[in-house]
């Protein structure tokens, strides 16, 4: 599994789709994205991470920067999103961070 992360609107999906030479349809089949939004809704993050890791590509937006939210639910959601990203990165064969559309491989190698 390849885990792709980076700031909001950084071009994460477009980068990995193009790099792996996937059509939009292939990408939709092989990838799952915005997984940071799923983290808040589950009781066990490791089960979610395991399930997501069945996909070839998992994409998450970084949400841990900036001020800690005042709202307890938003705070918990952000915490869960960060923890999920760590679990996914641990399971991933390759981790790439995309910034302004440009890649930095943090773990492993991209198959291309």
């Amino acid at each position, binding site marked *: 599994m390849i885990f792709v992360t980076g700031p*909001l*609107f950084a071009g994460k999906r477009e980068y990995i789709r193009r790099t792996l030479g996937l059509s939009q349809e292939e990408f939709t089949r092989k990838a799952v994205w915005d997984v940071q939004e799923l983290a808040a809704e589950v009781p066990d993050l490791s089960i979610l991470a395991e399930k997501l890791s069945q996909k070839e590509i998992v994409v998450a937006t970084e949400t841990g920067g900036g001020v800690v939210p005042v709202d307890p639910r938003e705070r918990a959601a952000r915490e869960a999103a960060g923890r999920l990203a760590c679990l996914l990165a641990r399971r991933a064969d390759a981790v790439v961070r995309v910034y302004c559309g440009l890649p930095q491989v943090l773990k492993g190698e991209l198959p291309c």
Partner: protein
Amino acid sequence: MFTLVIGGAASGKSEYAEARALSLPGKRVYLATMRPSDGECLARIEKHRLRRADRDFETVEQYIDLDSAPIPAGANILLECVGNLLANEVYEPNGGGSDAVLHGINTLLSWCRHLTVVTNEVCSGGADYDESTLFYLRELARVNRALAAQADSVVEVVCGLPHFWKGAP
């Protein structure tokens, strides 16, 4: 040569970009995009102006429509910053939105010798914003991605230190 310098608030990106522009040949032009709308803006502009005082930059203020900026051909331009320029192009009545920002920068590229562009990292704090803020973030991110794709070098400045995402020091 086209260098894109990006960083968060008070990351040292302006100082880095100025040093970069100073190391390059050509008539130096500081292209300022912040419209002085209140005391805080004026204080910030004054701070940057003082830092450039002995550095031989000609300052040109252009708040929208870079296409019409009076820039001599072959200049060594330091543009600061895309965040303000985009806000002006998006929110002012005569503004042309993000397309005008990209078009204007490409116009500069067509006649300058060197262009160093300072932009802002604003997308690292999650997505819990109202729709109008998200619109601005989306547009700034789009401009940043397009500029990063075109630039010879993309430098993120962290604590005053450069990290090259593209190109080399």
